[in-house]
């Protein structure tokens, strides 16, 4: 944004891992249940209760680490992070301090300035905290209500290096991260339900300076758009401060979605001192080469790899491949269809066109629709055979999309078969010629394009069912004879 100051951004992302039970107890992780009904002595932190680690949470974290090019720790342990806040019934959070399960990874992001590698410092496993609801307004409230259902839901905390230089890179990093997690199926990454949360650190420094400037932590941004906007706002605010020789205070600021500004949440009165120490109730984790390889070998094909394979194997444009691999479900849909109908570009056109148009219009997810790759392939075969016109196919497509009926049945039921009957078409063509003497005159005078208008009239007459190629040919022949 400016050639005097360099922006330094680091992101801290918390992702809920999509396990059935909590990280240290057998309570359900289901979202939206009645308050405190998913709790037990362990996640309530009652005296004498002991945590036992969920194997799936560890596996999911290792998958995430490997997919993000991390080194996996051969020896790892949990630690207590101590602080007082009522969302933590134990007065400490079980987290990982000096020996995280994964570290030293990276993500490559592409922006208009080119490709950029963003380091991942570490990924560790920890427990989520409960939810606080303040009674009345914040100022006048007399108390807060605590729901511990979320307490103990497994979280992966993914910390980036301060390698991000623009708000756009931050957004691309998050998009890539989310896409990877969705491909791995380790998290649903639903920002509205809080299963993906992001905090950002941002500071500015003059180009060429080695030391970092004073950083500010940004919180409460609940969409990628909000994160980008908050970072852009903060960039401008800090630059103004530096240029007018005011000190930037190291503090936490919250993003105000309505006013589009960041607001100070009071400076940190004391440095955070969490007095970490090893969690004595849990034993250490050791991961040998064999188990690491096993997880690595079972990773699904990741977005970038799949995209490149699509370009090479199916010979489709890079843009198509990018769109089609945006989610694992969409890529699967495309490949299922190509398996049955071997014209990848045609399939891609339908998937990116009608399919995504309806999905976006209806705000549906792919699993909500009734169509699948095989049904789309069946429909494309009907077009190829000339049973239906491309125009009618759109109607058929929408019907499959909503009902899941076979295209053949839909065509029968609704009488959508293309009219390729020579005599029938000839009759209509004759009528149209008789009705449009002016247009015929134009065509005879060399305005060939007007034939399109006549074909359109036939299509209108037949509700789109006429075979347009046949009609076009007929007009040419007939007009020549006049």
């Amino acid at each position, binding site marked *: 944004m400016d050639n005097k100051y360099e922006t330094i951004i680091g992101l801290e992302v918390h992702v809920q891992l999509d*396990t*059935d*039970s909590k990280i240290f107890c*057998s*309570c*359900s992780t289901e979202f939206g249940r*009645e*308050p*405190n*009904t*998913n*709790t*037990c*002595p362990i996640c*309530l932190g009652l005296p004498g209760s002991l945590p*036992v*680690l*969920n*194997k*799936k*949470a*560890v596996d999911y974290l290792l998958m995430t680490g490997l997919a993000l090019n991390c080194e996996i720790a051969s020896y790892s*342990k949990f630690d207590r992070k*101590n*602080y*007082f*806040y*009522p*969302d933590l019934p134990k007065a400490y959070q079980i987290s990982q301090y000096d020996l995280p399960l994964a570290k030293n990874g990276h993500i490559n992001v592409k922006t208009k300035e080119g490709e950029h590698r963003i380091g991942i410092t570490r990924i560790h496993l920890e427990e989520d*905290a409960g939810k*606080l*609801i*303040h*009674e009345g307004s914040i100022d006048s*409230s*007399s*108390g*807060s*209500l*605590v*729901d*511990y259902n979320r307490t103990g839901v497994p979280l992966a905390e993914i910390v980036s290096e301060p390698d991000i230089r623009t708000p756009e890179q931050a957004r691309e990093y998050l998009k890539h991260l989310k896409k990877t997690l969705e491909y791995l199926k380790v998290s649903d990454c639903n920002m509205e339900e809080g299963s993906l949360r992001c905090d950002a650190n941002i500071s500015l420094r003059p180009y060429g300076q080695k030391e970092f400037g004073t950083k500010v932590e940004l919180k409460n941004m609940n969409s990628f758009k909000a994160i980008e906007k908050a970072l852009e706002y903060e960039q401008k605010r800090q630059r103004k401060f530096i240029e007018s020789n005011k000190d930037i205070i190291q503090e*936490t600021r919250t993003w105000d979605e309505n006013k589009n500004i960041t607001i100070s*949440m*009071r400076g*940190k009165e*004391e440095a955070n*001192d969490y*007095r970490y120490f*090893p969690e*004595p109730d*849990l*034993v*250490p*984790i*050791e991961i040998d080469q064999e188990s690491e390889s096993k997880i690595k070998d079972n990773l699904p094909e990741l977005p970038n790899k799949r995209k490149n394979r699509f370009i090479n194997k199916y010979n489709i444009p890079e843009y198509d491949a990018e769109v089609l691999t945006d989610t694992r479900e969409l890529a699967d849909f495309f490949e299922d269809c190509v398996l049955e109908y071997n014209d990848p570009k045609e399939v891609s056109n339908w998937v990116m066109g009608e399919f995504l148009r309806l999905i976006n219009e209806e705000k549906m997810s792919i699993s909500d629709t009734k169509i699948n790759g095989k049904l789309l392939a069946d429909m494309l075969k009907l077009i190829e055979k000339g049973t239906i016109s491309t125009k009618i196919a759109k109607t058929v497509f929408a019907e499959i999309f909503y009902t899941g009926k076979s295209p053949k049945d839909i065509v029968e039921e609704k009488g959508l078969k293309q009219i390729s009957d020579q005599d029938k078409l000839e009759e209509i063509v004759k009528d149209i010629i008789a009705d449009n003497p002016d247009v015929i005159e134009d065509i005879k005078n060399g305005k060939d394009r007007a034939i399109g208008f006549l074909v359109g009239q036939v299509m209108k007459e037949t509700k789109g069912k006429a075979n347009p190629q046949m009609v076009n040919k007929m007009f040419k022949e007939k007009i020549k004879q006049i």
Partner: protein
Amino acid sequence: MIDQKEVKYIANLASLKLSEDQVKKFSKQLSDILDYIEKLDELKTDNIRPTSYTVPVKNVLRDDVVKDSLDIKKVLKNAPERSNNQFRVPKIMDEEKK
């Protein structure tokens, strides 16, 4: 040596209110304890890995299976105050600690 400033700092982290007399008293006691523990520094530990755990057990894991949670009545049984099946706690001033 744990000076009085440090005692106050630790007390604050632990949300304890100490009188000036107590600060003085604990400063001496905590220093004495640390001095005593420092005796361990006499041991040569150059080739010993820091010990976090004393029992040779590792990788204790459970399968990801949901079991019944505690009955809501029992969950809230010890709560001094409750409202709508939630724990009611005093107003929290320090929002940014989260």
